[in-house]
Every structure is written in structure tokens, then in C-alpha cells.
């Protein structure tokens, strides 16, 4: 329209100009005529004025047509090009324009297309480089996490606020041992991504260690680290080594820590061993001293020439008594030290079968003998230095092969009286005990491989024994090694680490970026918060009418990621009968809750699990009502903010008829597994919550406060339990 008006204006001006030009021409011609001629001219022209007007109109039409064509060609075509180019500028994906108009406009269009193509190419290039870089970063992170997962030492990485960014499965096991309710939350209430390490360690202690690391950094120490030993709430003794995590740039300058690595060692057992050793030593020296004093004094009295027979008898009795006392003490010491004192050589826990297989391979590799593994009890775990032990077995086998032409060797492992018996058996030629027993004192040499160690050294390193025995009836002979078994706890730990084949989400390095924790929770963005998403199963819908919780399930979302590994699931014995009509809903029968802990035991563990997080539940008011009613009896209050996926779903999709969990899950296309167990529902709720956060952001709801205010305005918020 605007263009048309401009065109009309131009056309009007042209029309006016032509009329003026015509008038002027007539006046000019008139001015050169004689009066008579003018009369004549007027007489001729006068009646033909309309003709002149017609000619003017015709000329105007012709000029207008030409102008409009020109205008279209030279003004609107560039304008269209401009619009298209604007679209191109804003386009996020590659796009081209199709120009129309003059040759110049077309050429301009082509040039613009080329520019756009160039830009798209550059953009794709950058995107690809970014993708590549983040892929390799991700790969490195995965590699690091995989490495950590395999370590047999406990490792926990924290940011400066003490939030855990990474931990390995060994650490999880160790924390499980520290937990006061190990069977309930599996240690997940103590260790977890985003959880505070200060739940386990005294904040001051960690701060002190950090400070000394900083001091060492400032002094320019190459690998500054600090150590501390601490007792935990459950009475375990931990030795902790701390190393700094320095931020990449300017690594020379002190005070640029971005976090720290803790390596944990449970030294409770070692310490107990040490104390026992001390105690035994102390007992031996101190008590022997007084016995010796008593004896020496009595003997010196006995040596006196003027001693009468009565006193003589009494002094003899003292000597007799003390000798007896000391013999008993020494016997006791020997017994206790044999069972209680372990060798100081570092040992590893190893499944007996694995040790035998490894030894078998080494013996086979000698080339001239075959080795057979027999009678292995798969449940036997040894505490051995496997390298030197296999070396000893191979060395003995090699000498048997070389010097006695033994061709077949057998390996046998059994447990006798709490100790492991490892036998290296062969049959055939009779040899003297003296001959073979000198082998144990020779430095071991296998082929070109030699070591100053002897078989005896290896045996002593294990605090064990070794001898040569013959079974005449079966024409067999064997070397028998007596070796220490791994304690039950060590067996458990070793077995659990081996079974842990899934590589879980045990890390989140994004947590290095710290949020200002001091800013009120209410104003922090929803994406930055840690959530405990939970669900309860109950005996009914009426908390005030005596219905009880029979199951709690929960999972965690930290930094936007759902941590499936760090879940909480526990059946609860309600102490009342579960109504039969509710069983089809939750699938929990009376038999299942029999023998389960009561809510008084479960709630404290859940309370710890949920600390420092925002609670999320579907129809949270229902679950919260149950928790509130338990406050009086357990003394535990859940004061953290609560988000309700039901209310927030209604905020996001006000026109949907149903906000049941199933309906929402279907809308979001969430695969539902194990629905209607507490943990299954908690998982679905967690996924729903993850989808809701960006949808809320589109509506301008970014913070906890905004989310709560929006939720309160919905219809559903008016329901009361």
C-alpha cells in the first residue's frame, strides 16, 4: 500500500507536469502570433480543447505504464531481495534465496547466496569442531571414570564446597561399611553425586587439610598432598589422603584449587592388629620383668648360707610358681600371635581358583611339563602375594622337571582348620627329603629369570609354612604350602568388586562449576538444584485414619541428570494388616513386609538420603501428609522445599484432562517400568520432572520460587488431605 501511494504521488506529479508543459507550449505558441492570427488560433483551438485533454490523458497513461514497469523492476525487486536476505540472516539452517528482477539484482542475489553458503559452511565447521572437542572431552571423562571404577583404592573427588563429583565402587563399599544403616540405603545416603562429603568427615578436618595443601602449593611443592586419620560415626578408623585438583590455567599460582581428591583407606583392621601386637609385646616385657625380678630375688635369697629350711622351702616355691607363670604366658603369647598377627607384607585378596590357574599357566609355559588343577573349592579366598607365590610354585616345578624328569604336576587347594593347604603333587621317582628341602633355601631361578628370594622367604612373607611329604601307597609326593585365608569381610569386598560389571554414572564433572550456595534456594534456577524424587506405597488413602507407609522408593536428580544408581528402596512393616483390596494396587502382601524394619528405622535412613535436596513427588501433598504425621513419633521433619509434578504438569498443560502419572508419562512418551512399586513410580516421576523443567522455562518459570507460586495457582492445589 505504501509503495502504491508513493507510485500514485509520482504519477500525479508527472500528470501535473505534463499539463503545465502543454499549457506552456500553447501559451508560447500564442505569444509569437499577431493578434489576427491569435484570433484565428483561438478559433481553431478553442472548440478542440477536449482533444488536447484527451491527448494529455493518453500521454499520461503511456508514461504511467512505463513508470510502473520501471518501478517494479528497479524498486520492488530489490525490496523483495532485502526481505529474503533478512530471512537468510536469521536462518539457523542452510538456506538459499531465489532472486528476480534485473541482471544486476540477479547478480546481487547470487552474491548474497554465496555469502550465505560461506557462512553456513563456517558455521557447520565450528559446530563440527565443537562436537569433536566435546566428544573427546566426554571420552576422556569416561576413560577417567572407568579407570577410577577399576581402582581397588577408594577415591572420591569433590569440588571446593565438598560436593562429590566422582566416586568409585570401592568408595561406595567403604562408605557402606561406615553407614549406620547399611542394609537400608546401601550406603547411598552417605555417598552420592552432589552430596556433601561433610556428612562423613568433619568440615574443620577437611578445611585444615586443604589449608596445608594450599601452604605446600604456595611453597612450590611439586605434588602437595595432606593426610589425616579420622574416626567415623560408626567407629571405623579411616586414613585419608588429600590431593588438590587444580584448575587448568595458571597451574603455578597457588589458590587456584577447583576441588580435591580424597583417597580413603580403612585402617581399622590394621590398627587393631597393631594394637594387639603392641599389647602382646607390652605384656611380654612388663610382666616378664616382674616375674624375673621375683625369681632373681628368691634365687639370691636361696644362695644365702644362713637360710633356714622353712624359708628355703618358701623361696623355692616362689621360683617354681614364677617359672610356671612365665611358661604359661609364653605359650599364650605364641598362640595369640600365631592367630592374631599378620605379616606386614602387602597382600591381596585372591580367589584360590584364580591363583591355581595362573600357576598352571606358568608351569605349562616351562614347556616340558603339563600341569593339572584338581579339587578346587571355588569359595576359597586367599590373602597372598600372588606374584612371589606363583614364582615359588613355578621354581619348584622347574627343578622337579629338570632334576627328576617329572612330566605331570598337579595343583590342589583345600581348607583345613581355617587355613588353606596348597599342594604341588607329582608321582614317580623316590627322592630324599634332604635333597628337596634344600631347594627351599636356594635363591629362586627359573630359566633366565632369577631373584634373590628363596621359597622360604616367600613362605615367611605369608606367615605360612611349607614342607615335603610322601604318600607311599599312591606313589605320590607333594610340597604343601600352608597359606592364610582372606577374612570374611575381605572376601565380601573382593567379590563385590568383581561382580560389579556395569559401569554406573558415578561422576559428574559439571559440578566443578559451583553455584553460589549462599544465595537462597528459592532464587536458584531449577536446573541447578539437587532433587530427591520419591514415592510411597501405603495401606490406604487415609493417613489420619491410621493408614501406614509400607514402601518408600526414591532416586536422585543432580545437575539435571537422573542418578539411577543412587536409589533408595525399602519395604516397611506397617504393624497393621494390609487391606486385601489394596494389594492389587501396590502388589505388596503381608508376607513381604513380615520381618522388614518398622518405619522408625527406615525413616531416619530416608531422612539422611534426602538431606540437602528438594523433594519431588507426584501428588506430593499425599506423601508429605504421611511424613508429617510421623514427625511426632520419629522426631524427623522434612523441611526442604517440595515440588509436585501433578501441579506443575497442570501448569504446563492446563487444557489436558488428566494429570495422572500414567497419563503424563504417556504424553512425554516415557517408558514405564515397574510401575506401582515405590521405586518404579519414583523413577517415572523423576523423568517427568526432567521433562517439565524446560517446559516451565518456556513459560518464564525458572526458579524454585516461581515454580511454587505457579503451582499454587492451579486448581489441583486446592485439594487437601
Amino acid at each position, binding site marked *: 500500500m505504501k509503495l502504491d501511494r508513493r507510485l500514485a504521488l509520482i504519477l500525479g506529479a508527472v500528470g501535473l507536469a505534463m499539463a503545465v508543459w502543454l499549457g506552456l507550449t500553447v501559451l508560447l505558441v500564442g505569444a509569437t502570433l499577431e493578434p489576427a492570427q491569435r484570433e484565428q488560433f483561438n478559433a481553431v483551438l478553442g472548440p478542440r480543447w477536449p482533444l488536447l485533454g484527451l491527448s494529455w490523458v493518453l500521454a499520461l497513461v503511456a508514461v504511467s505504464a512505463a513508470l510502473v514497469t520501471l518501478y517494479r523492476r528497479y524498486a520492488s525487486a530489490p525490496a523483495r531481495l532485502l526481505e529474503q536476505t533478512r530471512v537468510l540472516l536469521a536462518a539457523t539452517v542452510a538456506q538459499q534465496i531465489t532472486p528476480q528482477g534485473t541482471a544486476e539484482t540477479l547478480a546481487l542475489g547470487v552474491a548474497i547466496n554465496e555469502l550465505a553458503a560461506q557462512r553456513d559452511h563456517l558455521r557447520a565447521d565450528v559446530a563440527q569442531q565443537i562436537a569433536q572437542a566435546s566428544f573427546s572431552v566426554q571420552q576422556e571423562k569416561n576413560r577417567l571414570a572407568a579407570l577410577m571404577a577399576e581402582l581397588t583404592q577408594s577415591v572420591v573427588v569433590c569440588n571446593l564446597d565438598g560436593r562429590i563429583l566422582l566416586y568409585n565402587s570401592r568408595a561406595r563399599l567403604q562408605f557402606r561399611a561406615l553407614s549406620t544403616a547399611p542394609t537400608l540405603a546401601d550406603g547411598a545416603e552417605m555417598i552420592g553425586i552432589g552430596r556433601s562429603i561433610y556428612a562423613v568427615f568433619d568440615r574443620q578436618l577437611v578445611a585444615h587439610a586443604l589449608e596445608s595443601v594450599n601452604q605446600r602449593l604456595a611453597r612450590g611443592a611439586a605434588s602437595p598432598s595432606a593426610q589425616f586419620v579420622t574416626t567415623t560415626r560408626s567407629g571405623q578408623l579411616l586414613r585419608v589422603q588429600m590431593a588438590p585438583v587444580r584448575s587448568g590455567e595458571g597451574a603455578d599460582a597457588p589458590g587456584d584449587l577447583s576441588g580435591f581428591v580424597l583417597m580413603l583407606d580403612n585402617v581399622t583392621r590394621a590398627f587393631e592388629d597393631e594394637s594387639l601386637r603392641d599389647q602382646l609385646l607390652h605384656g611380654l616385657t612388663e610382666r616378664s620383668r616382674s616375674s624375673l625380678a621375683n625369681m632373681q630375688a628368691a634365687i639370691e635369697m636361696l644362695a644365702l648360707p644362713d637360710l633356714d629350711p622353712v624359708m628355703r622351702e618358701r623361696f623355692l616355691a*616362689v621360683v617354681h610358681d614364677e617359672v610356671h607363670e612365665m611358661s604359661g604366658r609364653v605359650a599364650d603369647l605364641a598362640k595369640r600371635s600365631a592367630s592374631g598377627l599378620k605379616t606386614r607384607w602387602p597382600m591381596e585378596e585372591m580367589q584360590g581358583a584364580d591363583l591355581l590357574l595362573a600357576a598352571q599357566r606358568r608351569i605349562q609355559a616351562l614347556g616340558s611339563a603339563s600341569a593339572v588343577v584338581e579339587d578346587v573349592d571355588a569359595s576359597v579366598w586367599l590373602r597372598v602375594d600372588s606374584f612371589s607365590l606363583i614364582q615359588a610354585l613355578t621354581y619348584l616345578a622347574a627343578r622337579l622337571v629338570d632334576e627328576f624328569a617329572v612330566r605331570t604336576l598337579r595343583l590342589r587347594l583345600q581348607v583345613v582348620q581355617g587355613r588353606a593347604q596348597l599342594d604341588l603333587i607329582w608321582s614317580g621317582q623316590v627322592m630324599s627329603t634332604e635333597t628337596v628341602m634344600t631347594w627351599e633355601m636356594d635363591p629362586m631361578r627359573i630359566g633366565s629369570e632369577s631373584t634373590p628370594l628363596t621359597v622360604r622367604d616367600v613362605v615367611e612373607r605369608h606367615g605360612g609354612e611349607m614342607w615335603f611329604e610322601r604318600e607311599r601307597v599312591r606313589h605320590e609326593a607333594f610340597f604343601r604350602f600352608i597359606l592364610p585365608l582372606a577374612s570374611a569381610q575381605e572376601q565380601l569386598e573382593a567379590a563385590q568388586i568383581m561382580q560389579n560389571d556395569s559401569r554406573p554414572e558415578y561422576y559428574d564433572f559439571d559440578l566443578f562449576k559451583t553455584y553460589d550456595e549462599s544465595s537462597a534456594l528459592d532464587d536458584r534456577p531449577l536446573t541447578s538444584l539437587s532433587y530427591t524424587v520419591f514415592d510411597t506405597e501405603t495401606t490406604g488413602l487415609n493417613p489420619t485414619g491410621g493408614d501406614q507407609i509400607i514402601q518408600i522408593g526414591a532416586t536422585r536428580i543432580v545437575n539435571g541428570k537422573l542418578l539411577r544408581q543412587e536409589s533408595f528402596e525399602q519395604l516397611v512393616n506397617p504393624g497393621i494388616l494390609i487391606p486385601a483390596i489394596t494389594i492389587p494396587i501396590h502388589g505388596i502382601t503381608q508376607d513381604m513386609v513380615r520381618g522388614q524394619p518398622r518405619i522408625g528405622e527406615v525413616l531416619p535412613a530416608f531422612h539422611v538420603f534426602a538431606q540437602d535436596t528438594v523433594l519431588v513427588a507426584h501428588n506430593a501433598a499425599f506423601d508429605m501428609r504421611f511424613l508429617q504425621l510421623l514427625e511426632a513419633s520419629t522426631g524427623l521433619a522434612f523441611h526442604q522445599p517440595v515440588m509436585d509434578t501433578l501441579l506443575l504438569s497442570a501448569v504446563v498443560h492446563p487444557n489436558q484432562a488428566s494429570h495422572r502419572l500414567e497419563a503424563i508419562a504417556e504424553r512425554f512418551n516415557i517408558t514405564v517400568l515397574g510401575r506401582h512399586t515405590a521405586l518404579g513410580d519414583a523413577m517415572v516421576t523423576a523423568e517427568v520432572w526432567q521433562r517439565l523443567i524446560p517446559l516451565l522455562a518456556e513459560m518464564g518459570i525458572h526458579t524454585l520460587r516461581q515454580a511454587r507460586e505457579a503451582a499454587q495457582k492451579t486448581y489441583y492445589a486446592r485439594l487437601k488431605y
Partner: protein
Amino acid sequence: MSQKILVADDEPNIVISLEYLLKREGYTVRVARDGQEALDAIASELPDLVLLDVMMPRKTGFEVCQAVRAVEAWRGLKILMLTAKGRETDVAKGLAMGADAYMTKPFSTRGLVQKVADMLAAAP
């Protein structure tokens, strides 16, 4: 009048030897079987010297030592500590608590007699 010695030790097997030995040397000997008994004995009749074992029931030798040194009237009392605790820190503690001398078990009886005689001779 002979000098008086109190032997404070809970082990009869050493007390019998010490009692016999010191009586033979001409001292008047009394025996206490724990720390409290030793303090009571000192209070009832002040001896010239106490042979004090460290490890005793009720009150340890260290406690007895401290209690004795807190009483002005007992200043002249000599204390010889006998103990199976052989660490240097124990010796230092005994002397700090106010013992005059310290002997570590086992000891030779001749050495003990000599020590007792020296200590009593040095008495003002």
C-alpha cells in the same frame, strides 16, 4: 633403734624376698599390699624409706608418691620406686612425682641393699 622401711607391693612373691632380705640387714620392715594401704601405713607410723611398686591396685605408686610429697611433715621420707615399667618416660615420671630413686625390675638384691643403705646414709 633400727631404721624403718615400708615395702609396698601387691605381689607376695617379691614381698617375701624383700622382707626377708631387709630384716636380715637389720631394718624394721612393714608390708603394704596396695597403694591405699601404703598411705595408711605411712600415716600411722612414718618410716624412713618406702620401697614403692608402681603397678598396684587402688592407688598406683605414682599416686602414692604424689600424695606423700604433698604432706610437709613427711618431707624426710625417702622413696625408692621399683617397677617393671622400663621405659625412660616412666623413670622420668617417677622422679617428677617425687621419688628419690628408681629401680627397674629385675634387679640384684645386693644392688638394692646398697641403694637403700646409701639413701638412708644420705638422710639428714
